[in-house]
């Protein structure tokens, strides 16, 4: 059974058809790189895949749960890291992650969060409001979620490497490899070169007028 099954997806935005009748299936342990030029609809597709946007036609199942009608069952199965980081500027890195864990219905283990932040090079910055962190550091706080929900089966990552330094990009790539080895599935977009040493599949979206 595929982790993600998208059938006959179509998306229109402001009278422009971004894509039509797309079928996409992702199996456990599979990495899918979503490619396409600016405006091709990569972000729109990812948002449809997690149920944040509604397609004009088609359906998406994550672990056999429909993301539009059964989001309460589908949500525990995946992690979505979008363009927007999901960090409140007034809360500290730790507070943002504690809140996210609680939202996901997981115990907010502050020690575990501190260890993840340490691993991501944010030691000493745990208690600083997110607004005082650099763009890269804020992105790292957002990506720390990948460490905190081990039971997720699917990662949906929209430009996860934006604003990150080379070392952190490497760290995230290694984390993706580790996740794939544990039979996780990943679909991601990136305008940067992705150096994940695991088989991957490219899904190309063409710019349509």
């Amino acid at each position, binding site marked *: 059974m595929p982790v993600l099954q998208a059938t006959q997806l179509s998306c229109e935005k402001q009278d422009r058809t971004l894509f039509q009748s797309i079928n996409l299936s992702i199996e456990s342990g599979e990495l899918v790189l979503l490619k396409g030029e600016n405006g091709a609809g990569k972000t729109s597709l990812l948002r449809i895949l*997690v*149920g*944040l*946007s*509604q397609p004009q036609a088609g359906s998406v199942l994550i672990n056999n749960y429909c993301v539009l009608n059964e*989001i*309460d*069952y589908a*949500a*525990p199965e*995946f992690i*979505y890291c*979008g*363009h*927007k*980081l*999901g*960090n*409140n*500027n*007034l*809360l500290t890195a730790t*507070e943002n992650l504690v*809140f*996210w864990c*609680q*939202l*996901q*219905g997981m115990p907010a283990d502050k020690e575990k969060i501190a260890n993840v932040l340490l691993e991501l090079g944010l030691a000493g910055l745990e208690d600083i409001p997110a607004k005082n962190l650099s763009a890269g550091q804020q992105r790292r706080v957002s990506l720390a979620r990948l460490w905190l929900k081990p039971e997720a089966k699917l990662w949906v990552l929209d430009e996860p490497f934006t604003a990150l330094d080379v070392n952190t990009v490497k760290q995230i790539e290694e984390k993706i490899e580790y996740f794939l080895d544990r039979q996780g599935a990943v679909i991601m977009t990136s305008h940067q070169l992705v150096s994940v040493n695991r088989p991957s599949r490219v899904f190309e979206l063409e710019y349509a007028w």
Partner: protein
Amino acid sequence: MAQTRLQLKAVFTRDISLAYRQRAELMQPLMFFLMVVTLFPLAIGPNPQTLQLVSGAIIWVAAILSLLMGMDRLFRDDFLDGSLEQITLTSAPLYLVVLVKVFAHWIVHIVPLLLLSPLLALFLNMTTDMYWGLLLTLLLGTPTISLIGAIGVALTLGLQRSGVLVSLLLIPLFIPLLIFATSAIDSASMNLPFTFQLGIMAGIFLLVLAGAPMVIAFSLKVSQQ
């Protein structure tokens, strides 16, 4: 169910904590409320009978305007920083999450206003009966304003500078509340019972409570498209 309760508690605690960290902004609607109420005696004149006659209407109109002032940020910050996306993608039903957010917003914006109300009642020469009428109508009416206001805010989330638009959309919807609230205070001023007006206001509140959370949740989803 226990998990949902914990998720909702997390949303409530976070919203209260965020409000506390933005105390200065929190004070703005309250100060606006206080200033509007203060301006009326200066304009109408200090005659205690005149002030008593219009006191209920002044406080209610000021309360509606100051509440609308504070409504705009109910979902906007979460929408802009992406927290709303993460809140949407959880197992907790969105309509319950928004209900908790509106409740937190009501506590943060209305409780200080209620605490301030005895002073204003004194200021506008309200009798004790009138004050009780005012307090009860505010307790029953302001949650309705918060819930209906949240629908307007959720609908206009994707628009820039939607503050005035929200006010234009919502103020007509508050007219029934305003009529019954001021009528209750008028009745109280004449030592007449005002349970009928309170009953109607309670009915409106229950009706809005039953439907608004789902409308707000749906509007938020549409605004995030």
